[in-house]
């Protein structure tokens, strides 16, 4: 069996950034396995701009951002296989992949990095009422069909969910000649960036219905009509607020979930909140030597953060390969009031450097504080002017602050 130092599963921004950083930190024998016919992952279909300000200091489109990473991968002679799907991984870090040229192949790696991205929640996941008809797509599917294949999925469109992918698609379909009749969001606030609300909806006079959801889908074979209605605080329909829209297409932009189908055979534990693997401060999953980063770990809004996180993970992997010390003593990290999830979920007893915590709040907060607690003792408090569930927050604790923790670490948010 072929031996590899670091095998990276997924050649999107996360996989490429992790591989580049592992190489930069001294690992020679790296292999990226990518199921698509080119590197770049989801970025290749995100043709709008707005990426790259943090990493490259310029505003790039998704394909441009991918291009920069792909050029770096090629310049560094990092090995990759395209049209190659990983079908299983084991605890002992044996990887089985399949492609047309080689057939089924098993390789053995010292470390594995899971960078297989995420998938979109679809109709089944949110159980939309009404008949089963054609014409319902996730926003990402419609994006891929339009931007890569040149197929416009419909002419009269309604969008459920106000996440950024849905907003971006609203503008994109309008520019291509379709009519977008509205966007409905069940929450009383939008899940997208303000910039996208203004430039994708307001620029094209597309109405945004907050606190609204779809209550019916009708049509014979194809979607013909949808009905939305306003909901109260408990997400119950308010009678008499129903509105009908005659459409041929319904796009769903209702959330992303980390792709974890490979974690099971290796026995990797998942987190109920992020739906991705549980990791420690070095982004190692519950199986030693298997790491995760990017959207496969938790859903990111910005590729810049994916790239920065994955570069960090690439370095950790390289360091751990060169001198690995297991620390069986772990400190657990929990979200409390106001926090949807916090990552990493575990810390090694003696961390070697500062740790950045990533978390999301459960609703919009103005003038509030984020507190880190060891048992009942507040060890750090950070004031924030403005926090939204749509924006991932990041706060860094110093090495000393963490190494003095005696119980566990909890994070909570409250208004001041």
């Amino acid at each position, binding site marked *: 069996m072929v031996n590899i130092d670091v095998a990276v599963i997924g050649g999107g921004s996360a996989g490429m950034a992790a591989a580049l950083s592992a190489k930069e930190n001294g690992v020679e024998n790296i292999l990226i396995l990518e199921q698509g*016919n*080119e590197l770049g992952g989801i970025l*290749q279909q995100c*043709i*709008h*701009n707005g990426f790259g300000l943090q990493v490259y200091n310029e*505003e790039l*489109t*998704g*394909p*441009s951002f*991918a*291009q920069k990473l792909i050029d770096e991968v090629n310049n560094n002679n990092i090995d990759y296989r395209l049209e190659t799907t990983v079908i299983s991984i084991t605890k002992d870090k044996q990887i089985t992949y399949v492609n047309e040229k080689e057939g089924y192949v098993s390789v053995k790696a010292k470390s594995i990095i899971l960078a297989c991205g995420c998938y979109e929640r679809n109709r089944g996941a949110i159980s939309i009422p009404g008949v089963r008809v054609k014409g319902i797509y996730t926003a990402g599917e419609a994006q891929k069909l339009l*931007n*890569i*294949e*040149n197929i416009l999925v419909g002419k009269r469109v309604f969008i459920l969910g106000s996440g950024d992918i849905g907003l971006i698609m609203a503008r994109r379909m309008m*520019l*291509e000649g379709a009519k977008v009749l509205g966007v409905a969001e069940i929450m009383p606030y939008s899940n997208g*960036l*303000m*910039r996208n*609300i*203004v*430039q994708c909806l*307001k*620029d094209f006079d597309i109405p945004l219905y907050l606190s609204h959801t779809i209550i019916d889908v009708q049509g014979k074979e194809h979607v013909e009509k949808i009905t939305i209605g306003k909901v109260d605080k408990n997400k119950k329909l308010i009678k008499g607020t129903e509105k009908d829209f005659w459409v041929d297409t319904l796009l769903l932009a209702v959330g992303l979930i980390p792709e974890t189908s490979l974690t099971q055979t290796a026995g990797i534990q998942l987190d109920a909140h992020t739906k991705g693997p549980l990791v420690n401060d070095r982004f190692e999953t519950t199986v030693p030597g298997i790491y995760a980063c990017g959207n496969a770990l938790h859903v990111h809004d910005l590729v810049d953060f994916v790239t920065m996180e994955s570069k960090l993970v690439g370095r950790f992997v390289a360091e751990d390969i060169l001198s690995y010390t297991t620390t069986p003593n772990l400190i657990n990290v929990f979200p409390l009031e106001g926090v949807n999830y916090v990552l990493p979920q575990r810390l090694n007893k003696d961390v070697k450097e500062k740790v950045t915590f990533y978390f999301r709040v459960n609703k919009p907060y103005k003038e509030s504080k984020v507190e880190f607690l060891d048992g009942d003792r507040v060890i750090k408090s950070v004031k924030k*002017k*403005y926090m*939204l569930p749509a*924006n991932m927050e990041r706060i860094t604790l110093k090495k000393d602050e963490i190494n003095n923790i005696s119980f566990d670490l909890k994070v909570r948010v409250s208004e001041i």
Partner: protein
Amino acid sequence: MIKELICIICPMGCHLQIEMDDMKNINLVTGNSCPRGEKYACKELIHPERILTSTVRIEGAIHPMLPVMTDKAVAKDKMFDVMKKLKEVRIKAPVKYEDIIIENVCDTGANIIASRSMDKYEKL
């Protein structure tokens, strides 16, 4: 006349009110929490501009479409003209990232450039 805008420069998303006279001169901007909001309001009301991203047809490449963008912001009301122009374009691989596809598109002063490279591609 009072116009309303949401500032998009930072996540605060301040709601701006802009007082304009009949000559469309801006007299007063309120609701902004910092000076950047005022600057944004002036720009956005007098001469709104956007970067436009889209695709053009390409032959002999890995995909049938090449992603492209304007190399600087163009007047918002020119967006549909530029889109129409893009529909007429047919190019052939190979293309390099940032190659100019259309110069001075629709007299906006902006060029249409390739968002990525696309090599010649033969399906095996």
